[in-house]
């Protein structure tokens, strides 16, 4: 492209849009330090670090966090296995019904979350299944599959099919080829997909309200606070920490998948 300059109005509109996206999140950070604990007063009358200590000593927050991490970890693991399998099948063969399968994988995030939620809830009802960590995992893994799948499919597509043939040609059987060629080439995509799946599960609330029963994940804990604010300062601190914690996997996924085109374009 020629070195041309963007019109001023476009720059301004793009900048305003980005600000619109980020300022609200930054405002949370300010509230985490406010001395005001009854209202959402702005500007904060004063700043303090005391709420961090208070939050640290709250067992309910820790419990909710623990459940969220456990659910996210198990869901991510299941999604990694199922998403990779589906992606590998789609990458290696042309077969009847491919479109149906890709639709099926995408459906859980294409349809509103409430539908997944109430579907699972009514299925648990009909099947007489009691709520547990596993009922939450069942829902989360279902919509996490697509995240892993999308990352893996994209990488498979950019990885030359002849790499697998070359490996077999050099004497490696199917499992050796997977271990020594396929896996190293899709590893970063899987890691990125896994991180995103973790972030997605860690943050999910809409489906979870239907599948958790009386259990509290961190988002459910927050939802309760949003509907009936009782612990505003603690909520502020938790909100800020959640933002910071979810940024890590996103940045990680970005750095893992960045610049893969040059690697995958190898040999073309």
């Amino acid at each position, binding site marked *: 492209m020629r070195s041309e300059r963007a019109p001023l109005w476009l720059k301004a509109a793009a900048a305003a849009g980005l600000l619109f996206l980020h300022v609200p999140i930054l405002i949370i950070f300010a509230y985490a330090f406010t001395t005001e604990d009854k209202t959402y007063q702005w500007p904060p009358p004063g700043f303090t670090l005391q709420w961090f200590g208070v939050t640290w000593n709250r067992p309910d927050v820790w419990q909710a966090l623990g459940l969220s991490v456990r659910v996210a970890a198990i869901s991510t693991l299941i999604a990694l296995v199922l998403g990779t399998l589906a992606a590998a099948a789609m990458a290696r063969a042309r077969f009847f019904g491919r479109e149906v399968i890709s639709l099926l994988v995408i459906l859980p995030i294409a349809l509103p979350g409430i539908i997944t939620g109430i579907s699972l809830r009514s299925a648990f009802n009909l099947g007489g299944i009691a709520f547990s960590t596993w009922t939450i995992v069942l829902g989360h893994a279902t919509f996490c599959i697509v995240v892993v799948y999308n990352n893996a499919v994209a990488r498979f597509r950019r990885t030359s099919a002849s790499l697998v043939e070359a490996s*077999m*040609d050099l004497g490696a*059987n199917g499992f050796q080829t997977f271990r020594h*060629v396929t896996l190293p*080439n899709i590893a970063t995509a899987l890691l990125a997909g896994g991180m995103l799946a973790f972030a997605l599960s860690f943050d999910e609330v809409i489906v979870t309200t239907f599948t958790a029963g009386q259990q509290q994940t961190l988002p459910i804990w927050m939802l309760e606070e949003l509907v009936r604010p009782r612990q505003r300062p603690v909520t502020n601190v938790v909100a800020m920490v959640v933002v910071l914690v979810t940024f890590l996997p996103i940045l990680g996924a970005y750095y893992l998948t960045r610049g893969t085109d040059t*690697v995958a374009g190898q040999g073309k």
Partner: protein
Amino acid sequence: MPAAVTFRNVSRHFGAVRAVDDVTVEIAEGEFFAMLGPSGSGKTTCLRLVAGFEQPTAGEIAVFGQNMAGVPPYRRPVNTVFQDYALFPHLNVRDNVAYGLMIAGRGRAERHRAAEAALELVQLPGYGDRKPGQLSGGQRQRVALARALVLEPRVLLLDEPLGALDLKLREQMQEELKALQRKLGITFVFVTHDQGEALSMADRVAVFNQGRIAQVGAPSDVYDRPATPFVADFVGSSNVLPPEVTGRLAGRRLPASLRPELVRILPPGAAGSLATARVISTQFHGAVTRVHLSMDGLDLAALLPRGARVPEEGAAVGLSWDPDDLHLMDGT
């Protein structure tokens, strides 16, 4: 001693498309065998059938007499140099070359020694620590070659290995490949769409057309005595004369091939002139000049060597040739 590679009535169909259609051919041990044809003629599919990446729809492929049906690629005594080289991007050059040995369970020291030796063989000593992404096209091609050769295959399959290289490098690699094949004495099966490459390198050439082998023979055979009009035209862009014209000129109603470089251009009405034609256009190619002619509505080409007198466009000329050079084709 059985042939290195045997195709017995091999077909490979993709749905209604007959990519390979009833191919029968034997490739002898130690031979440099070229499969030549336009894209989509089935030559690459034939190579992939030998490597085991495709399965024949019908027929049988044997390597050193052993039927390859049901034998996966990793159990076949052949190795392949891929058109896109297929170097593993996550491994450095040394580990790429040593990959097959690693899979075979050889020790690290032995692997590295063998890899370095193979790299020397392809004239890339000391390149082991680089990543494939840091190499030029020609260097990648050599690494791919070393990676296949390090396993001492009895048959090496090469799928358009020089296709991605520029002209100068390609000519250099042609010589090197030929020398390497002589030195190692193993069978090379070489797929190419470049007739010059096939003629200059191969001991024998199989010319593919629409999934079938149109002709197999030594390069000079194929060039001098094409079996079909397709071969005549594809290999060296010969003039193909229809049966009627041949009947008038040589007395037998068969299609005939007349190499452009064997057509002589004479002044109109000169003695020994066998036919008359009109000059349509002339093209200067450096070493030769190509003259497009129309002989009673039939397009012909003639190549004039440097220094020969080039006729004017539109001029009437006489044509002559050695009667032996008019090659009648009784193939189909």
